[in-house]
């Protein structure tokens, strides 16, 4: 049975520490754009932790929500691409083929989650920072879109390893960088077709919701809503 990769993010234990953000940068060769470009709104964070305030001082709460590519079944970004650079793989990944991308940026507009990022310039790594680059991940050139891949390189590696050892993939064999580093274990990755996998089980949790569900995009990332004590005297 083909894999169908999916993710679960437990907002109840997410502390917004952003370890996942830096882990993603380190794993996927995401460039830092520097203050000038960042001020122009060109900072690249394939994975971002959205922060929303609720209420007002002193009875104020904060919602953290790590948002990465939702790898939608009906990804709006795919059909609009004239060159098939953005398409759905057999394993349910929303793939971005960098060398087919001609940079219309249409996919980014179509994406309701704004998780697609554009290389406005050629990425720079001031020497010798480039020595850190991950050889398993291609460095994107100017003019192409890029986005979260669910660490497809790790998925490949995991499958190859399993093959080499001539065994089935076990749940947890494959960990995207964000899931691996998450200190509170709030990011769970796995095969949704394997009903025993933690990801598959949590996907059906009563706390489970999808981001912008009514857009009809059918995301493969599930968010487990935060629980709370009811505070009788908070207005």
């Amino acid at each position: 049975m083909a894999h169908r990769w999916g993710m679960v993010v437990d907002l109840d234990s997410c502390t917004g520490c952003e370890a996942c953000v830096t882990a993603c940068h380190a794993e996927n060769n995401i460039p830092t754009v520097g203050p000038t470009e960042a001020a122009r709104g060109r900072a690249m964070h394939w994975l971002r932790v959205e922060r929303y305030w609720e209420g007002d001082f002193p009875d104020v709460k904060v919602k953290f929500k790590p948002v990465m590519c939702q790898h939608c079944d009906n990804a709006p970004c795919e059909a609009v691409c004239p060159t098939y650079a953005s398409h759905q793989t057999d394993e349910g990944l929303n793939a971005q083929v960098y060398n087919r991308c001609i940079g219309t940026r249409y996919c980014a507009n179509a994406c309701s989650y704004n998780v697609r990022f554009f290389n406005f310039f050629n990425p720079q790594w001031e020497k010798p920072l480039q020595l850190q680059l991950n050889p398993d991940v291609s460095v994107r050139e100017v003019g192409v879109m890029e986005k979260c891949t669910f660490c497809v390189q790790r998925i490949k590696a995991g499958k190859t390893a399993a093959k080499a050892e001539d065994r089935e993939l076990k749940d947890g064999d494959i960990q995207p960088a964000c899931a691996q580093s998450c200190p509170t274990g709030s990011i769970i990755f796995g095969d949704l077709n394997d009903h025993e996998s933690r990801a598959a089980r949590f996907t059906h949790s009563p706390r489970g919701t999808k981001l912008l569900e009514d857009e009809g995009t059918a995301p493969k990332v599930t968010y487990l809503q935060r629980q709370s004590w009811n505070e009788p005297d908070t207005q």
Partner: protein
Amino acid sequence: MTPMDRRRFLKVTAITGTTAALAGCGNPENQIVRFIPEEELVPGIAVWKPSVCPLCAAGCGVIARVMDGEAEVFRKGKPGLTRMGLARKLEGDPAHPLSKGRLCVRGQAAVQVTYHPDRLVAPQRRSGDRGTGQFTEISWEEALSLLTERLDASMAAGSAQIAFLSRPRPGRRHELVAEVLRRLGAPAPVTFEIFDDAVLRHANELSFGRHQLPTLDLAHTRYLVSFGADLLGTWNSPLAHSVAYGAMRHAPGGVRPKFVQVEPRMSQTGASADQWLAVRPGTEGALALGLAHVIMKAGLRAAPAAGRAGALVDGWVSGLPDFTPEAVARETGVPAARVDRLAREFATYGPAVAVIGGAPLAHTNGLAQALAVNALNALVGSIGVEGGTAFMPQSASPQAQARTLRETMAAAPPQVLLLDDANPVFAAPAAWKVTEWLRQVPFIASFGSFIDETSAHADLLLPDHSFLESWVDSAPESGATSFVATVAPPAMRPLYDTRAMPDVLLEAGRRLKQPLTPPMPWQTFEEMLQTAATPESAPTPAATGRPAATPPPTAWRAPVLDGSADEYPFHFLPFASQAFLDGSLAHLPWLQELPDPLTTAMWSSWVEINVRTAEQLGVADGDIVEVTSTAGSLRAPVVISPGIGPDAVAMPVGQGHETFTRYASGRGANPLAILAPIAEPSTGQLAWSATRVKLAKVAEADGSLILFAGATRERPDHTKGRG
């Protein structure tokens, strides 16, 4: 031919015609040399090597993903190329009791320390005036002779006036330094860290007989009250805390564990709390005592249950009559009803634990605050139990014998100052006049890998390896319930002409005119690490702890602040930033571009103010305000936040570096600079949370504030209605 030989006789072959291709390799006149690879690695195959994250005192174990690659290196005074194993990424070490396979945001970025473009590649000596940061490269031979010369001189002068200033990093490395200094006849090493919780250690010594930070067993806690401790973000051992916190949240079934955060400005930790209680800065202790009052009054616990810890609190035995919920409400601003309910919950749901750390201790009443929380913990019996708080067995805590910077500065200036990463010029208030003090020191040598505000005053730079290139160890004082000492070999070969600080010290020691007595038992740090480190103290302390004379009870008093309330209306709250801690990480581009968890600011510093305050000042996000204290003033953009009261303003520490690599220099403002030099009396530690300031708008937004987020609310008001 074995690798050893190869390393000994480094073969050098010239490559011609590639100079153009290798721009960035210095000026083309330089002969580009290719060093013979020193190790065999299968191209494209990753090897995982253990190491220890050096970025904070937590000492988490990490593993580095090493793959071969082509590196431009600097060896034997020559730039060149070689294929070598390069650490590509850090992950938490699954086998390590602190990190458990996880890694925090700063740890993830640590790899950039090794590959930083502004890292020192060879020893240098000062060529310009002090502080100008002008240096010229020299050989290690010359560097070592310069160093030993000075050491000899100072020893010849009688009692060796040698000071070694570093950051408190418990472990063998620090032991070695202490040993060398002892043999030199020099005073104990000096440690300086602005956010070091000396007050808490002192309080724990008094309450529990352990001069040490506590370990929280969050995984099994069912009720956690944190008084100002940013335990999931920056305080003590944040990664271990977070891992345990995850376990607490994922605890199977039953009642949901409750987490209450008590602080004046919402921290990243406060954002994760089930309930966030805003209190007036410096009154956290009063709330703790209020809880104790209710618990004892309601007969949920009896006063004696707190034992010695309770006895240290004035009025404890009589049930703290002055700390009725109403009185506490007046003092702290927390409604009496909440105090009451919180107290009952705290005593009912178990295991419950309270913790205090950070800002609440940085007050004139810091000790009283800590003692109050300790007593509260003792009262509900959360000491040394599962789901409570415990003290981790450990080898000698550096903070125990180390001298503070203030003591050292008070005494006559040393002849020789050895700097190891500490950066007091940046991280101490300007009022301390550290720069002036450094001017009085005839000779300063720095082991740091970068030129920062302090090492810019050095006469000699002896760059250390990066942690990935050398033997590293850690023996954290907190974070786990069992003794943890981590030792790791180099994960990769040094890129540059650098040397491990301990080895340089040992080498210098061997070269001294009058040899060290008794001679050092080890020739290298590596040798030292062969000898096992052993825990000094027993695993679990009794609530009573070591026998020691019980000091007179301390009464909780409201904090004394610098600056009059009417001239300086706002309480100034500097806080360790998620990305930079005390500013020592501001040179890492990944962390600079990391959106702050609560404000989403990148590459900037800011002043957090309440909505009401903003209306009074007539400022919007990004407008520039001047923050003035009695000790000085600074300018920074404002961020309007509902997470802070109208009587306080907060500012992240970390930006505002003058000279600290291309990424941090000249960026933002440094709140520490304008702190009033008030000390917590019992420890003399800086009360960095006890300054009042006034604000004035000085300019419209100038773009210096870079926010990643476009909006702060999930449903911004104007999207709600048709009106």
